[in-house]
């Protein structure tokens, strides 16, 4: 029973591929579009002279884009079925918005890639796949849209499916679960309701597929990682000696009596209690925001890790990472940035930009001495203090970091740790 569970879906695709229409259609067919919103769409569609309901109008947000008819940035759209709740993180498709696609996909469990049946696999498809490959998104749904414009031909669908599989072979991450579905968002075929026009297609509709996804299949349990956000010290009469470490447990489970190590101090202890609000528990699982107390009275502060003593992460003052640059000001070698790893911050310096990755040609690398907005590249980073981490492939939660521009305070880049570099 998944009553509380929320499935997060990231969508990317060109405005021309019908992505906004698809989302609007999902909302409409799941009765998630409220009457007043629907009335607004009807009014707007009529104003624009359309003879159909432009569901895209349900999802476009900010004024500037409404005039252009394009969506920019990440928009969050909510819908639910009797089975569970869904959040769609919708991002634009084109090259300039790689940063938004990564942002949307970073918090999502499932990625939805849209292809226009008339055009098949294009540069943009390659880019979307590549980004999902980089992010190691487990569940990929490829919706081949506008099937109505190719007469719902099975041959067209198969040809595109074949091209897409070739793309998949070229990716470095091989753990995707990939599903291809022929749809028409405009007319509703195979989105929520099955189509009569694709009798050759024996698979599920898009919504059926989403509903059937099990959380245990997409969430990998790696090693327990607990990072302290804040220390709770009530100092009241009743809770005089209470010293709890509050944070969100990531990676795996933690139990009372587990032997743990605090990093970076390397002090050893045992989990004394696991608490959530006014209740104590024997165990906590991945994702819980809890408060832990330890057996010994040792010094633990914000940013410290509490991990099981037989599951230590890597430690290094130098790391290699794939960086996606998100700022207008380019990333240059020898520049100092604040590196934020979870809630922990450390000063860092770009030792070298090793190569730039071309997302269009499926990851071919080139020489580079800077990374510009929306560029992806390999870099070697030095840290002022040792970092305790897992590689991104080992643990999605503890294998990523952000780089902060110390002048503007903005989040300038995101990094995916690739290797540990042995430093003596």
């Amino acid at each position, binding site marked *: 029973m998944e009553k*509380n569970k*929320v499935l997060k879906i990231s969508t990317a695709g060109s405005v021309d591929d019908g992505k906004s229409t698809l989302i609007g259609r999902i909302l409409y067919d799941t009765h998630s579009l*409220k*009457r007043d919103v629907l009335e607004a769409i009807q009014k707007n569609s009529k104003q624009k002279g359309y003879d159909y309901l432009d569901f895209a109008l349900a999802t*476009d*947000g*900010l*004024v*500037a884009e*409404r005039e252009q008819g394009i969506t920019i940035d*990440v*928009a*969050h*759209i*909510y819908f*639910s079925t009797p089975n569970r*709740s869904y959040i769609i993180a919708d991002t634009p498709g084109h090259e300039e918005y790689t940063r*938004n696609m*990564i*942002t949307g996909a970073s*918090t999502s469990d499932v990625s939805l890639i849209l292809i226009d049946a008339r055009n098949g696999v294009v540069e943009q498809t390659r880019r979307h796949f590549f980004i999902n490959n980089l992010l190691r998104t487990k569940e990929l749904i490829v919706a081949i849209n506008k099937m109505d414009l190719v007469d719902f031909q099975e041959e067209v669908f198969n040809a595109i499916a074949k091209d897409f599989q070739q793309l998949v072979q070229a990716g470095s991450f091989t753990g995707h679960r990939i599903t291809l579905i022929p749809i028409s968002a405009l007319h509703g075929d195979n989105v929520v309701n099955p189509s009569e026009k694709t009798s050759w297609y024996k698979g599920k509709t898009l919504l059926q597929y989403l509903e059937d996804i099990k959380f245990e299949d997409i969430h990998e349990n790696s090693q327990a990682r607990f990072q302290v*956000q*804040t220390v*709770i010290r*009530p100092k*009241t009469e*009743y*809770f005089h000696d209470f010293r*709890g470490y*509050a*944070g*969100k447990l990531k990676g795996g489970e933690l139990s009372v009596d587990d032997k743990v190590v605090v990093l970076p101090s390397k002090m050893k202890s045992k989990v004394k209690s*696991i608490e*959530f*609000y*006014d209740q*104590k*528990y*024997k*165990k*906590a*699982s991945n*994702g*819980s*925001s*809890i*408060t832990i107390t330890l057996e010994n009275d040792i010094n633990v502060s*914000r940013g410290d890790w509490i991990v099981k003593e037989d599951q230590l992460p890597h430690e290094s003052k130098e790391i290699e990472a794939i960086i996606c640059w998100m700022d207008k000001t380019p990333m240059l070698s020898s520049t100092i940035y*604040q590196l934020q790893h*979870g*809630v922990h911050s450390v000063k860092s310096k770009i030792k070298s930009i090793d190569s730039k990755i071309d997302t269009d040609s499926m990851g071919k690398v080139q020489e580079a001495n800077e990374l510009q907005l929306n560029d992806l590249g390999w870099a070697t980073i030095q840290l002022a203090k040792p970092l305790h981490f897992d590689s991104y492939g080992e643990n*999605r*939660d503890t294998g*990523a970091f*952000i780089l*902060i521009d110390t002048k503007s*305070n*903005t*989040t300038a880049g*995101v990094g995916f740790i690739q290797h540990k570099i042995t430093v003596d």
Partner: protein
Amino acid sequence: MKDIVINNPLEDEAIYIFREVAAQFERPAILFSGGKDSITLVHLAKKAFYPAKIPFPLVHIDTGHNFPETIEFRDNLVKEFDLELHVHYVQDNIDAGDVKEEKGRYASRNQLQTETLLQAIEEHGFDACIGGARRDEEKARAKERIFSIRDDFGQWDEKNQRPEVFDMLNGRIDFGQNVRVFPISNWTELDVWTYIQKEEIEIPSIYFAHKRKVFERDGMIWTANDEVVYRDKDEIVIEKTVRFRTVGDMSCTAAVESLAFSIEEVVKEIRQSDLSERGARIDDKRSEAAMETRKQQGYF
């Protein structure tokens, strides 16, 4: 002792965000309106810091047009949770000539709150203001960040918002800047109600069906209170059994006819409703871009 913590991912996320605010900012505050979302925030904050006290004060921007029930509720809540409360009155800004009161049929003090809020922030030196806004409420909010960076005029520039990757929150600001924090960004209206139901959270009585003196205008039902809500001579006062789905001011919030007297019935009604939560708010109806424009001017 219970076996394992049962996750509610939305609750875990909100608690995580509250803890980040406490850790990253010097003087945060919770913006409290007396509505169900801000009440839910207070309950989440309690869970986030237990057994320590909630480390922030509540700030209420009082338009003077509140439902009296929400004021009474606010005062009881503050006492029960032992919280510090700062109330700032829009009336003071009107009297001082900082803002001008709207007149006529669709007059409300909703937009005037921005000025009062900005002054409250400056007076107390708040660097982070925690609010109950949710992304499903409205289009401009759908793109809002969890940590929304505002300049010292409280202004929101949609082109300068920081990417929020994974769950990492960057609240670094310069002197004079301010952050709005939205811990329940990903909660839907129904999520809030089912949480209130499950946690048995007390909320103002006006959310439940009750008899009220009202009048009808533009197909909507308004509270008959001539001091606060403008009423034409030909708009007749009648009594109806209604409830409020969203609680803003009396002057900008319409009631819906309802027989939902209990929380169970309210939840059922919302599940079946075909009208969106803010459908009964005229402050949003004024233009499609109403919310976005207000945020650019420093609103919540």
